């Protein structure tokens, strides 16, 4: 397919996802998170084997198709927190687990694709998430091959409502590369206590909380892969996240750019349209630049994953993608805020941007500062975290 052909196929896929999402969102206006989640999942976004796009969207790989789906949902007006939660489960949990879990185990989780079963990624603890070998949550192997899980995970997206957690725990007391293992944990059992949702200020549409495991017994088949492979699995879930998670920002950015352009075309001051000011035009162009750069980078990641590149092989480029999109998202939102004037701070003005959530993107899925260390280390600098 030519580059131009590919571009229009992607655009068609985004437009088609936006169209179905608009209808799902309007049917569920004012509904709770899970209702809206399920309505959007019904469009096939969370399906491990998505319906091969037909018609004008044919020829896209599964990752690109899912990416276009996320962008379309955001373009349709889904709040950023909902887009984030969808992208986080699809790309940060489902995609990396797909080659690892047997069909039987995948089936045992329930209807993830249809949105009935919600997953969460439980890595971070009170002490942090970027230094996984320091985690204290532990899974002790019993004589019968089962494990008993004890400890606490904090700052987990969807923890207050998720059904199954991908939980990382230590299976060895030593600080060795093979001290960690990953488990699929049913969070609906009495031994799992959930906190109330944290009163967070970014991505407020998806709840976040902590999970406390008070001796949860896990059957041997709840271990993901082999004991000790937790860090390797984590390397892959984080590579996927860094490559693809910021996809959630693309739809909301497009919406903000569209409404900002409309505003600059319609608002008059100094006896002329606001958009006839060079300064205004330059800010709008900078917003378009940030969006363009971000889309190109994330779609490039998707194309490489669709082409079969191993996530760990593209880990360094994924880190650069994550840093770039997160920082462009902040710059983009600042420009929109300036152009909206006082209306940027009036909730129902239609021009009020969310200034906090873009900033938060620089801290999750690997804080940008630590990702910079990774990038520099890959270039050969003797720098450590």
């Amino acid at each position, binding site marked *: 397919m030519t580059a131009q052909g590919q571009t229009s196929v992607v655009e068609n896929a985004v437009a088609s996802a936006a169209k179905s999402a608009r209808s799902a969102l309007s049917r569920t206006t004012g509904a709770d998170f899970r209702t809206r989640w399920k309505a959007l999942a019904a469009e096939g976004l969370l399906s491990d084997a998505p319906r091969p796009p037909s018609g004008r969207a044919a020829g896209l790989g599964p990752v690109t198709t899912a990416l276009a789906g996320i962008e379309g949902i955001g373009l349709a007006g889904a709040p950023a927190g909902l887009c984030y939660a969808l992208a986080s489960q699809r790309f940060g949990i489902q995609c990396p687990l797909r080659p*690892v879990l047997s069909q039987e185990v995948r089936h045992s989780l329930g209807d993830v694709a249809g949105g009935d079963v919600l997953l969460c990624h439980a890595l971070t603890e009170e002490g942090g998430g970027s230094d996984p070998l320091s985690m204290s949550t532990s899974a002790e192997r019993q004589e019968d091959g089962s494990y008993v899980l004890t400890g606490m995970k904090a700052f987990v997206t969807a923890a207050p409502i998720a059904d199954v957690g991908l939980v990382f725990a230590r299976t060895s007391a030593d600080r060795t590369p*093979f001290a960690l293992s990953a488990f699929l944990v049913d969070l609906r059992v009495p031994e799992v206590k959930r906190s109330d949702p944290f009163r967070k200020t970014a991505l407020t549409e998806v709840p976040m909380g902590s999970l406390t495991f008070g001796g949860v017994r896990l059957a041997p088949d709840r271990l993901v892969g082999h004991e000790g492979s937790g860090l390797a699995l984590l390397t892959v879930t984080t590579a996927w996240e860094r490559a693809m998670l910021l996809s959630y920002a693309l739809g909301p950015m497009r919406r903000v750019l569209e409404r900002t352009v409309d505003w600059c075309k319609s608002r008059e001051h100094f006896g002329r349209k606001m958009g006839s000011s060079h300064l205004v035009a330059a800010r709008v162009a900078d917003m378009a630049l940030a969006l363009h750069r971000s889309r190109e980078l994330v779609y490039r990641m998707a194309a490489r994953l669709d082409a079969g590149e191993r996530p760990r092989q593209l880990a360094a480029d994924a880190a650069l993608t994550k840093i770039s999109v997160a920082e462009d998202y902040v710059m983009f939102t600042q420009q929109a805020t300036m152009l909206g004037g006082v209306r940027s701070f009036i909730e129902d003005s239609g021009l009020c941007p969310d200034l906090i959530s873009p900033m938060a993107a620089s801290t999750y899925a690997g804080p940008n500062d630590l990702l910079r260390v990774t990038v520099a280390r890959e270039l050969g600098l003797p720098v450590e975290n």
Partner: protein
Amino acid sequence: MKNADELCSLIQEIIDEASGHADEKVDPSTPLLISGLVDSLTIMRIVARVEQRIGISFPETEVVAANFRTPTALWDAIEAVKGASHSEGAV
């Protein structure tokens, strides 16, 4: 890469890159984990480099202590992965 000795050279190369100098010569029976010669980043780098050189996909679930005790253990694991991918008809 055809044998455990070539794998040793690769591991040596990666350890040298990380530490900037070679303190220890890696041979097929060098205990990689007990000696603390390789940390988690080095392990992941070895996996990535092996995949590139040999053109295999080393499953995450095989990145476990038993396969990294010595270069010989890792070479055996690589051979097993190669065997499995051939039998699936993959390249």
